[in-house]
């Protein structure tokens, strides 16, 4: 089983290193948000000058400054954005007959799906970690805001942060794989992705605290996987006192999202494998449905 998965991931890796534009484009928007938006927009500066620093920290739920608060949101956003390319490979594999070749071998359907999920999941993690690295680095650049983490973060807290990034990446990878397995054409895939991209970001607390939002929006924000991941990270890095639930609860919610989305994606993958089998030349069968 593992050998089949490794073979399939190796194929994706070889293609990926030969066309790194995908990664660069997936990385660009979160980085631009960090070095442009994050530097220009500071929620704390909108408060009257006589508001004490402790109030600002309270508004930002423990984060020492707005950039630190925002940078954590961008980690989740980077993962979500990178994941949006996850389904493209699936569509090309379907269109070019490669999927047909793969499913005609004894390799199990589960192994084929796992290879897609694992490889795309890892690709999703890379930008998330690059954003953390860049945000931490910016703190040492004179004149720029950077991510500062107060001392006192526990090993367990750090593990929860990593787990949150990992789970969020897998969840979004699975979501976009699901679209890839069900889409017939790359155009319809990117149509859906474009529609989803901003709502996913804007119905989260990635960029600003949800306290000022109308109640209905707060309910949506509370269950958005980006919010859940961001809550786990911020509560562990900046202190959990401002949150109604413990980080473990948010993490559990995130794991639930991942489980549901992976189940959905694997179901759609299986369905796609079943219906893709007799696709032969378009002349004889017409385009794949």
């Amino acid at each position, binding site marked *: 089983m593992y050998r089949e998965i490794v073979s*399939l991931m190796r194929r994706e890796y070889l293609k990926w290193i030969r066309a790194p534009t995908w990664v660069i484009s997936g990385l660009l928007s979160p980085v631009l948000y960090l070095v442009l938006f994050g530097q220009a927009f500071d929620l704390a500066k909108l408060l009257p000058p006589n508001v004490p620093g402790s109030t600002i920290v309270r508004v930002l739920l423990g984060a020492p400054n707005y950039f630190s608060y925002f940078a954590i949101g961008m980690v989740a956003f980077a993962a979500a954005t990178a994941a949006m390319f996850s389904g493209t490979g699936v569509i090309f594999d379907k269109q070019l007959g490669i999927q047909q070749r793969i499913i005609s071998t004894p390799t199990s359907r589960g192994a084929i799906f796992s290879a897609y999920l694992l490889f795309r999941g890892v690709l999703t993690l890379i930008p998330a970690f690059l954003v953390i690295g860049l945000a931490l680095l910016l703190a040492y650049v004179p004149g720029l805001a950077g991510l500062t983490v107060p001392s006192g973060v526990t090993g367990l807290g750090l593990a929860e942060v990593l787990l949150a990034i990992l789970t969020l990446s897998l969840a979004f990878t699975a979501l976009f794989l699901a679209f890839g397995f069900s889409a017939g054409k790359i155009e319809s895939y990117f149509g859906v992705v474009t529609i989803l991209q901003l709502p996913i970001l804007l119905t989260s607390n990635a960029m600003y605290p949800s306290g000022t939002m109308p109640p209905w929006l707060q309910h949506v924000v509370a269950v958005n996987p980006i919010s859940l991941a961001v809550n786990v990270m911020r509560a562990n890095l900046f202190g959990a006192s401002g949150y109604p639930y413990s980080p473990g609860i948010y993490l559990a919610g995130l794991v639930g999202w991942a489980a549901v989305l992976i189940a959905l994606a694997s179901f759609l993958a299986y369905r796609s494998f079943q219906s893709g089998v007799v696709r032969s030349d378009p002349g004889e069968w017409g385009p794949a449905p």
Partner: protein
Amino acid sequence: MSSTATDSADVICADDLRVVYPAGKRGGTGTRAVDGVTFRVRRGEIFGFLGPNGAGKTTTISVLTTLLAPSSGRATVAGLDTTVSAPEVRRRIGLVFQSSTADSELTGRENLTLEAGLYGFSPAEIAPRIEEVLRRVELSAVADRLVSTYSGGMRRRLELAAGLIHDPKIVFLDEPTLGLDPQGRAGFWRYIRDLRDTEGITVFLTTHYLEEADQLCDRIAIIDHGQIIATGSPGELKDRMGGDTLSVRTAPGAGDLEPVVRAIPGITAVLREDGGYRLKCARGDALVSKVVLAAQSAGISIEQLAVHKPSLDEVFLELTGHAYREEGTGADEPAEGPVPPAAASPTATAPSKHGGA
């Protein structure tokens, strides 16, 4: 596994296979792509599945290679049921699709390494085998080039190499020479004969080229509208046409040849045509000298004499009542995917070659 009393020499058995495609979204009834197909393929033979586009060839090969469950009926390959033991069947067969399935962003060698990995081989243990199949299909020199730079013929050969990577004893080829130039086709025929002759591999191939079936196959099944209408060796099928035809042209003003040739044993019929005669017989070659001698002794001078072997075109016309459809006329296929047996509605099974897109 195999419960039916199949001879062990029969490595591929199809019993009353039926595949029904569901009715299209725009209405219409379902299409019986395969409608009661039964045949046997013996070990070590090249078996051709011949028919026009849309006759049900690809559907049949999909069932035999486990990629599609039949709506009813049963298929066994190497004694294993294709629906019950699909993974075991897949391990034993090589499959070459009619369209390119290689990843064009990888090299030929990388594609074969991937294929081997999907059969559970590690790159190290499979390396010698990859060299061997590359040599067999004459791709060694370009093995490290990206497949996107390959010609159509090279891609077809890579497909064949991929189908052979795990050393299968049964190989399925779906329209292997589709779109190849005559040279490429001849080369492909050589590879296929070589598989049978040097390794005793059983080859099942679909084709809509009559010439290909004639040249390459030990036995042929002719399929049309989802049903097998004839099975046999190319020679047997041609014999059904009543054997050969001798066409004779006599010199102008020469006497009547008909009574002369009617007396020759073996001539079964004599037809007159403009300026000559058509003589039907089982084996034309053997009667040529007799016809010439008989004409000479009757004082009739022969200007021209030719032996016509019946072609599979004629066989096809005879069997189906319609001329062989050539490439590009098979657009009457269903646009929908297949249905699993349970989902196939029994009311949606009226034969309809026009129900698709």
